[in-house]
């Protein structure tokens, strides 16, 4: 063997050494955009994704991007307009219709069959809300219904039985009144209920009452139906509750600090608060939303995963594999974020069933059957906005504050919603 041949062999061997490990470690990224930025959710989710990256033998790697919800909606549109949206996006079912109609999302029926995603056991209303024009555009992962939290110490101090939480409006008022404490100067030192004026919590509570009294947001003509008798009953109930003196009346920006500071006995909010309340050392109880109206109902929304349209279809199947894995492994994010998985396989996961928090989540699971979502209309984010433009928030706040009568507030709410719906 000549020196030249030897040199060639050595060089080839070096090239092979450099290339082979690369080939063995070839990774296929699946980009995923989500809005779970509250508390330590992003970090928690990253650990779940890291587990996928370790376990998965196909070389798929999830590359997540966490954004605040408002930023996510903007970025999703901007990246879609620029031709490089994330492969997978995780948001709410209520936002799917708008993005599907704009052509940002991909119908996934064929891909679901290809990776064998089984939605058996998922509530039918959630399945329907995952479809647009009869086709699946997203896969539901969880529900996060609004229910009752109570401070067991304050309940016991008021002489109430924490094992028998209220199930009706009358029982709820009895609890709230028993836990409202006034000092000698007439100053309220402890409230029965921590219910802010308006805000998103106000909107969700109004939604709950609206459906409990048999109403709905939209009529058959597709316009707002909030001038109905049922809507009147719902808002009047809210106003009366506010005026009864049992409520903290915090500001509208999700202000439920009175319950957090143990100056209110009850609060109505979603399961995402379980973690922080337990971490704060509260002696916590949870229960299904009491029935204030005629039928049981409570507000909920759901997180779902969707695929975006790409220039090339080469990563669609990989992205769907990621979604399938995530849905089947939803127990950990469910517990840690505070959301209730909807896939039976996730609900049966020992991580969910055996977890010490399972007792707090049980009423949330029980309430899945009475959970009602806001209508998943194309203009959902505009109509059901959290900001100052929202005719829903403005008019709930005005009625609660006594600045408008219930009739005026509902008439103005309908006018405002209709204006958004009819705006071209």
């Amino acid at each position: 063997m000549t020196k030249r041949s030897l040199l060639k062999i050595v060089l080839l061997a070096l090239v092979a050494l450099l290339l082979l490990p690369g080939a063995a470690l070839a990774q296929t990224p699946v980009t995923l955009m989500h809005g779970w930025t509250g508390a330590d959710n992003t970090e928690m989710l990253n650990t779940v994704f890291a587990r996928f990256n370790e376990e998965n033998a196909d070389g798929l790697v999830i590359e997540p991007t966490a954004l605040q919800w408002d930023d996510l909606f903007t970025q999703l549109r901007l990246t879609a307009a620029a031709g490089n949206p994330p492969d997978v996006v995780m948001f709410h079912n209520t936002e799917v219709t708008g993005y599907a109609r704009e052509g940002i999302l991909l119908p996934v029926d064929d891909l679901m069959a290809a990776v064998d995603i089984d939605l058996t056991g998922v509530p039918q209303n959630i399945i329907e809300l995952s479809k647009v024009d009869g086709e699946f555009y997203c896969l539901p992962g969880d529900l996060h219904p609004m229910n009752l939290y109570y401070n067991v110490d304050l309940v016991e101090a008021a002489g109430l039985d924490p094992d028998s939480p209220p199930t009706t409006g009358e029982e709820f008022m009895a609890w709230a009144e028993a836990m409202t404490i006034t000092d000698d100067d007439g100053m309220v030192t402890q409230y029965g209920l921590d219910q802010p004026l308006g805000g998103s919590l106000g909107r969700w509570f109004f939604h709950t009452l609206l459906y409990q009294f048999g109403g709905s947001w939209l009529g058959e003509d597709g316009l707002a139906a909030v001038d109905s008798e049922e809507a009147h009953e719902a808002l009047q109930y809210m106003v009366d509750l506010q005026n009864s003196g049992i409520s903290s009346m915090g500001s509208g920006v999700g202000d439920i600090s009175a319950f957090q500071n143990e100056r209110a006995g009850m609060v109505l909010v979603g399961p995402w608060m379980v973690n922080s309340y337990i971490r704060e050392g509260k002696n916590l109880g949870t229960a299904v939303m009491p029935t204030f109206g005629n039928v049981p109902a409570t507000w909920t929304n759901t997180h779902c995963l969707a695929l975006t349209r790409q220039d090339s279809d080469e990563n669609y199947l990989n992205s769907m594999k990621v979604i399938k894995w995530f849905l089947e492994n939803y127990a950990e994010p469910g517990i840690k974020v505070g959301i209730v998985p909807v896939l039976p396989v996730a609900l049966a996961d020992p991580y969910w069933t055996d977890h010490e928090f399972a007792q707090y989540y049980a009423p949330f699971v029980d309430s899945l059957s009475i959970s009602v979502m806001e209508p998943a209309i194309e203009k959902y984010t505009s109509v059901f906005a959290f900001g100052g433009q929202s005719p829903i928030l403005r008019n709930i706040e005005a009625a609660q504050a006594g600045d408008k009568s219930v009739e005026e507030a509902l008439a103005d709410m309908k006018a405002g919603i209709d204006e958004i719906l009819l705006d071209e």
Partner: protein
Amino acid sequence: MSRPAPPKAKHATSPWISIKNDLIAYAFMAPYLFLFIVFLLLPAVVGVYASFTKWGIIGQPKWVGLKNYNKLINSDLFIESLQNTLYFVVLAAIPLIVLGFLLALLVNQKLRGRNIARAIVFLPHVVSVAAVGIIFQWILERSSGLLNYYLGLLGVNPPINWLGDPDSAMPAIAITTIWWTVNGNMIIYLAGLQDIPEDLYEAARIDGAGRWQELRYVTIPMLMPVNAFVIPLTVIACWRVFGQVFVMTRGGPQGSTFTVAQFIYETAFVNFNMGLASAAGVILMLITLSFTIIQLRAMKVI
């Protein structure tokens, strides 16, 4: 005694040297100029163009002429946001300027511990708007907030719903803003105060001026160039108020703190009506420009 003649300046008489000096100056400006054009001027020009279009980010903008401006003029929501913002400007801008000046006078005194005092007053300036908003939300909270706790000790009952009452929400945000940003004006006024030559005060004292006359006839006139900077900038900043409102009230309750900047944000990034949002942005720019020109004219700066 005659003063010696100043040395003759070595003027660059050669046009080549002049051009070279100009080029050097432009080279120093170039990095900022590049950033200014790319990130400020071009987006502003595109924004003005977008204000005459219907555009939802996705797809091509469609020319609609003055339709967006017409819509804004007839929009109760936009008019309300202008009124709310003007109210905030009145509530916040005047205290920001007057208190900034008074604080600068205070920390300019030759007193013990003045450096510590300056640091303490300046400290809120380094806090982010999100943190300021959250802290003040807690302080102003109705049932368990710090402010209502102390007011309760003074006998104020029932507690005030600072951020939940339309009458008190905007003043509460103005107070938050003043606490947070007054120190910026203080620093600028302080720099202005320290630039006033001491011999002017000595001359005034020789003429029999007291403290008040010194302030009126020396300090305030000598700070006019600083005022020409501070007043328009403060008013412009107040017109653009957004962050603290977004964190503390999101424009509520009942839209009482809904400002123009939030109107623009929600129109653009919630409703994705970029044309209408751009038109609102152009109107906001024209308003701030008008205010600035009026102020500078009144101060005889232009």
